[in-house]
């Protein structure tokens, strides 16, 4: 391992965030549009971005300094408004038309890829283009951190259908299946797990949840979390464990629809 701390940090971050973040199975419009906006925002030096849908080119864009500077190519069946935007430097006054074009081309339920190459010709420095943030606002998207005040509460609401119980020290256990409450032995076992020194305390990093299948009941899964010094546990259906974990991991990265500017 290199002894250069900044390189070590970069490698660790790349290993955690992924080296192949240029592809996404985008179920929703928010995910699809967020994927393309992320790619634009990531362009510092001028780049040509080819967006593919299911392996077929969908559109080519030119971006630099986190701004969309040109739409290079669109599908032949793109509407006239979109075609009028292509192959010319974009101006901020065209943000609404560009956002409408992206919304039409990125409706969700798409398997997207992004290929990044140097542009054939340098961008015109006289036209800075449209910032990805402005497109994000125009599309009515916001990053979750900006609009979700309590991520834990958001998770509990999203997982409502598979949630069985929530346990927090000093609070009564919240049962979500009154007709099938968790056994008292399990409740006591989880309360013991949450008491310091919790065996999970050294495993959890910031904002992580440890999900596992319960040894005494494989139909149930446990999620152990810690908010500062405040531990808590949720009990969910085991079959949903991977889905709930995936939701928690992707939550900060998937834009959320909100009211457009």
């Amino acid at each position, binding site marked *: 391992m290199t002894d250069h701390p900044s390189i070590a940090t970069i*490698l660790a971050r790349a290993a955690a965030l992924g080296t192949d973040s240029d592809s*996404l199975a985008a179920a929703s419009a928010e995910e699809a549009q967020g994927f393309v906006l992320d790619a634009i925002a990531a362009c510092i030096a001028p780049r040509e971005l080819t967006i593919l849908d299911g392996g077929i080119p969908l559109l080519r864009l030119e971006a630099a300094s986190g701004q969309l500077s040109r739409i290079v190519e669109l599908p032949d069946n793109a509407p006239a408004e979109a075609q009028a935007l292509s192959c010319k430097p974009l101006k901020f006054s065209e943000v609404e038309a560009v956002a409408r074009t992206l919304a039409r081309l990125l409706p969700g339920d798409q398997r997207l890829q992004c290929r990044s190459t140097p542009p054939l010709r340098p961008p015109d420095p006289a036209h800075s283009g449209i910032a990805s943030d402005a497109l994000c606002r125009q599309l009515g998207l916001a990053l979750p951190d900006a609009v979700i005040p309590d991520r834990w509460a958001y998770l509990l609401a999203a997982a409502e259908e598979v949630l069985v119980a929530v346990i927090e020290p000093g609070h009564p256990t919240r049962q979500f299946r009154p007709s099938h409450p968790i056994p008292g032995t399990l409740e006591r076992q989880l309360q013991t797990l949450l008491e310091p020194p919790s*065996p999970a305390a050294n495993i959890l990093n910031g904002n992580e949840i440890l999900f596992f*299948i319960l040894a005494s009941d494989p139909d149930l899964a446990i999620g152990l979390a810690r908010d500062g010094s405040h531990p808590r546990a949720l009990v969910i259906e085991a079959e949903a464990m991977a889905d709930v974990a995936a939701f928690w*991991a992707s939550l900060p990265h998937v834009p959320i629809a909100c009211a457009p500017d």
Partner: protein
Amino acid sequence: MTRDDLARFRAGFAHCELVMLADTAARTVLTFDSAIHQGQERLDDLCATACALFRADLPVSGMALLSGPRGSRLFLQMPQEPSEVICAVLGPRADLPAICAAAGQLGDPESMT
């Protein structure tokens, strides 16, 4: 299980950065495959987490996932040899349900036939 088995598994999924087989009894890394070079200390950290999960006081059975904003780490005990654990490092947008299902098959030789 060979490094090639792990490499084939990893190649099947986007955002699967590393797959490793650890021996929690011997507290050692048996083999691994990764997208980028991984330092030994990172592999050792993953192995230590597997040991803490399956050899401590947690009532864990078979599978565990550590998920957060920087992605997920999957830990799966081999059914035939529970001291051996498959560990995977996954990006935040990894398809966890599909990867967990495939890891279960990877750890169960009978399902591979």
